[in-house]
Every structure is written in C-alpha cells, then in structure tokens.
C-alpha cells in the first residue's frame, strides 16, 4: 500500500515537470495593459501641471523659476503606477511604459526632471483662455513646490516677483 502510493506520487511528480522560471537569466514579458514606470516626453509636454494636480501621491512637483521657465520633477520614489497622470495628460506626453525592473541602490535614479519653457502671451506675459474641463481640475498660477525636501506645497500666486528671464517684455501686474 505504502509502496504503491509512493510510486503514484513519483508518477505525479514526474508528470508535473519543472515550473520554476529562469527569470534573471532570461527576461519574462509582462501581461498586456501592464502599467510600469511613467515616461515623460518633454517634446510633447506643455507644462499644464494637470498630472501634478491629479497625482494621488503628490510626487510630480512643479516649480516656476520665472515667468518663462517651469520645472516639472517626477520623483518616482512614491509612485503607485496608477496611471492617472497618463489619463489626464491632454497632449499624451506621459506613457505608462512596460518597464518594471527598477531596483536600484540610489533613489535618485528614478527621478525625471523637465525644465520647460512656458510660452506666454506676447503682450502681457500670462494670458489664459477660458477654463476647460482639464483646467478646472488644475491649480492655477505660479507654483512653489519644495524641490529640496520633495514636498508638495499647496500654494500659488498670480505673479512672480523679480525679473523675467527674457527682458524684452514688460509684465503687466494686476
């Protein structure tokens, strides 16, 4: 009886074969619709900061250096890969890539930083059209997220103190 059951078990074990994946030696494709690391396309980005306002982890930070230059910093460390930034992006500048092998020894390896030129009104420096559905979600004005301490700061103001980067226009303040 016991010998027979052992033989049966041997048969079952032989039939099962080997299931272990040879993973790090050979790569394994991810399933379709997998959301990996978001990749920011700086050529398409218009700097509307819709992604920053919709990120549940507040990890896309926006800092306006002057009237023309806006820094968009994706930290990557607390990203939950929910894909809301890619959904809300009006220019489809963010794609959720299939990249998941992001193990690293320095957390700064994950960040992406875009220094964008914001095209401003040639007359007044900052004109806005009527609020669209996306813009109603946005926090308007110039923003001051804390890039050093990687914190999202809920503060904006309608104009910036100091000199603009290009000095060929005069900025009318309200």
């Amino acid at each position: 009886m016991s010998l027979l059951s052992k033989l049966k078990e041997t048969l079952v074990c032989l039939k099962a074969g080997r299931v272990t994946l040879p993973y790090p030696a050979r790569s394994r494709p991810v399933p379709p619709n997998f959301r990996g690391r978001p990749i920011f396309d700086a050529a398409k980005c218009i700097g509307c900061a819709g992604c920053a306002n919709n990120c549940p982890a507040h990890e896309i930070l926006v800092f306006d250096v002057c009237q023309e230059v806006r820094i968009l910093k994706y930290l990557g460390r607390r990203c939950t890969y929910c894909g809301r930034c890619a959904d809300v992006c009006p220019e489809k500048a963010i794609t959720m890539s299939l990249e998941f092998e992001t193990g690293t020894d320095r957390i700064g390896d994950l960040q992406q930083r875009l220094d964008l030129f914001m095209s401003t009104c040639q007359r007044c420096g900052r004109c806005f059209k009527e609020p669209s559905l996306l813009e109603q979600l946005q926090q308007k004005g110039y923003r001051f997220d804390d890039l050093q301490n990687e914190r999202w700061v809920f503060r904006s103001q309608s104009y910036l103190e100091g000199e603009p980067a290009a000095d060929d226009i005069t900025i009318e303040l309200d």
Partner: protein
Amino acid sequence: MLKNLCQKMFGRSLWVYHANSGGCNGCDIEVLTVLTPYYDVERFGIKLVGSPRHADVMLCQGPAMHSTAKALRRAYEAMPSPKLVFAIGSCACGGGIWHDSYSVMGPVEKVVPVNFYIPGCPPRPEAIIYGVAVAVGLVDKKTAPVQFKQLALPIPRYHPGDLRGEGELVVYEKVEKI
C-alpha cells in the same frame, strides 16, 4: 564599494527577514510569491528566516509609522552586522500615497538606513528578484536619472525691435524661424 562588499560578504546566501511596518499586505504577498517554487529564490540561496538575529537582509514593507518605528529600529539593531536593508514597494521607498498622513513618518529610510530600493505598488515578483539580483551583482541596474532641459524658447518671441520697414511693408525679422 558597496557592491564589492556585498559580493564578498553575501556571496553565498542571503537570509532574509521580512518586516512590515504598517503596509497594506500587498508587498508581503508579492514577497511570499517570490519564495514559491514558481519563482524559487532558493536557487540563489535566499531563505526566509523568522528572527532578525538570523538574518543578513531585512525586507522592509510599508511606510515608517509613528507606532512601529521603534520596533523597526529594534529589529534592525538586532540583526548581526554586516546587514542590508531592502525597501520594497512605494511605501517603503518614499512613503507612498500616505507620505504626509498624520500617523506616517515617511519612507523607512527615516528610521533605518536603506541600501536598495525596489519601487512598485506592489512590485512584481520579477522586480523583487531583479532588485535582489542587482544587490548580489548578478545583473546591472537599468535605471538612471533623466533630466531634460530646453535651452532655447522653441517659438521666436515677438519684439518690436525686430520690426523693420521695407518700402510699404513692415517685415518681422525673425519671421522665417516661425
């Protein structure tokens, strides 16, 4: 230097201790999936142990919370040196979506020094294996920081100084660049 030290000290086998300091259990389940025969990390000598005193590596999941920070610190100090700490998941790497919550201190690196980061919410089992393989030097890491800087405004600015008269017409000098 850290890589050489790792290969020297941890060349044979890593015994891991699995510490959850307030996560949602998603990363725990993925870590346990890594230990199953399907992914089978015991071929690298990695084994789960129940006590930090037996462990070489601590796998941290979940953010450092005010209630569990002391226990996490004690578990880290109980591990014999040399020791490594892996932060697994977005919560351990950066605090996750609770990074500014009232009971959360932030990433686990505020409590214990972290050597390797594996982000993901939760990370795939392959991603965890990849992070461990990066640590023991089997593969190279694939990530690097990306910085993009626009050097010139893509659209030429309108400026009245660039206007010049040509007979009856007023020509904008930079018009060919538009």
